């Protein structure tokens, strides 16, 4: 260890691996992983959420999974709850849609209207 700066750099690097343990508040993404969700491919969706979060080094996002949300026809679905507690349900997800959601909604705070359940159900 040569200087305090080295140590701080090491600390920030190490913190990235532990974010899940210390996130309190922030954005929460809940992927529907009931039988219906799993059957329609929720796992790759979950994984691409994780990949994107890592790629963009987001530290205020928690990804969890929940059971069936009751709209099985629109699976795979994910509910995004932002800092203010507002909920956005995205449905019929694909990995490329996940990329858009992360970039537009989470980074730029612009919810994507057309992916949401309210838009699809009409």
């Amino acid at each position, binding site marked *: *260890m040569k200087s*305090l700066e080295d140590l701080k750099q090491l*600390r920030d*690097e190490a913190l990235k691996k*532990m974010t899940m*343990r210390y996130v309190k508040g922030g954005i929460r993404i809940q992927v529907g992983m009931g039988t219906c969700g799993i059957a329609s491919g929720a796992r790759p969706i979950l*994984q691409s959420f994780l990949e994107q*979060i890592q790629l963009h080094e987001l530290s205020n996002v928690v990804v969890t*999974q929940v*059971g069936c949300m009751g709209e099985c026809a629109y699976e795979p679905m994910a509910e995004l709850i932002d800092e203010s507690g507002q909920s956005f349900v995205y449905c019929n997800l694909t990995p490329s849609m996940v990329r858009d959601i992360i970039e537009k909604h989470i980074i730029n705070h612009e919810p994507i209207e057309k992916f949401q359940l309210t838009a699809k159900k009409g």
Partner: protein
Amino acid sequence: MLERIQILICGGTGCLSSQSKEIKAKFEETLELMSLKNEVGLVLTGCFGLCEKGPVVIVYPDETFYSHVKVEDVKKICEEHILKGRPVESLMIKNPEDKSRIKNMSQLKFYSKQKRIALRNCGNINPLEIEEYIAKDGYLALGKVLTEMTPQEVVDEMIKSGLRGRGGGGFSTGKKWQFAKNSVSDKKYVICNADEGDPGAFMDRAVLEGDPHSVLEAMAICGYAIGSDQGYIYVRAEYPVAVERLRIAIGQAEQYGLLGNHLFGTDFNFNIDIRLGAGAFVCGEETALIASIEGYRGMPRLKPPFPAVRGLWGKPTNVNNVETFANVPVIYLKGADWFKSIGTEKSSGTKVFALGGKINNTGLVEVPMGTTLREIVFDIGGGIPNKRKFKAIQTGGPSGGCITEKDLDTPIDFENLTALGSMMGSGGMIIMDEDNCMVDVARFYLDFTVDESCGKCTPCREGTKQMLDILNRICDGFGTMEDIDELERLAHMIQETSLCGLGQTAPNPILSTLKHFRHEYIAHVVEHTCPAGVCRELTNFVIDDHCIGCTKCARSCPTNAISGWPKQKHLIDLDLCIRCGACKKACPVNAISSQPLHEEVRS
């Protein structure tokens, strides 16, 4: 891949002995099978503190708290919680008030009333990875101290913080550092006293196992302050997990250049070695500890000269306890004023207590100084199990004394406990209920000190043995009133004439039980009865008229000594009774008690 879930498994000695290693292996195996391995993190941490509920598993990010986890439960947790996101309710702790399940850690009263400084990382980080300690601002205090402060400023800050030795004496840590700094010598030493020996105290072990780096960092800071380049950790070989984790921690710190030469680009060098002790209680005394490191028999010597003047190999030495060291890095990160703002005026900061005995939440708690004993026992500790009545707390282990119900609202600090005739000690708290015989408790502690007396000075070697003989006599039913007076005389004599702290404090359990529970001693001697029903020779269990005839006692008796019809008063045949107390535990109306024999004959 980013770990979306991290599973923290308690790896303290308590949970390790109830299979937490096997639980971790099972998690690994199950997650591999479900191909979830790279999105789930598994960490074996230090002690979470709530040992009663062990083995404990905490699942982040939601802090779901699973207690009493068995190897068979792992599959369920993986399938339900990890895969489908449905926390397993049956493994959560029940809220004693309304039987609902407590979902996460912050809802537990046990944690919400605590303030964790020394234990800040225990149960939070992986003690085997230095990176996790660094992520929690580890070694930042050392870096700050080395690059921005002079040694005198370091000592001044420590004096200002008001930190006092957590090993028992309560001497100002800053002043101790100042003495060692003032001694002029080419070589000085820093010693970490990890020879934790009080029965029932295990906070030092928890720190070493759960957060070894905090001790290493603090020792290096102390080394810089007093001008030393060599540290020793004196730890007992009875703590194999702590020793192993310390070894790994020292290796990692050396690898990162956080121990060794030219730390942070300065001219400061510091190395740490481990010295194993054989687990003698007297080696917790600093001069005996130093003798033991030098390779001699662990025996104390006269002070002065204090170790700060002439210590290890005749050189100035600073000895601090593990918990004291664990507080040090935080003081330099957050400032002495912050530390001073916690606790009471004369005792700043927090203290870790190990709760044991008759209490619901056995384990480690850290509370600000000035918290009352009642809060610790009834709020954090969860009260006494089986609806028994609280009788006393023994604080300070074999050197301390007992505190009774009337003093429960005293705010805890060094002065108040001493005024009550007990002491802070290392922080062991044994809680006793109405089923504990205080004479037997005094005998237990004395038995320990007789074993642990090093034999150097006569009052301690011979006096404690004499006292133990008298106590044995009283417990066996052969005691006289003169014995009680003799006991008191001996106790004062040993207190005044012993060489070291071990002898000076050994009579404390006797003196304090005599002070608060003299009637129990008298019951043993005059009425030949043990009111709590512990001393076998003096126990005569009798069922009184409150008996509702529920037959529970008769069913629990191992020798079928109890007879009686349902809904009628039962009777104990004292010739068959083996005084095990099973009936007393089973009785729902407290109708069974130990009574003097002659009354029984009369009725």
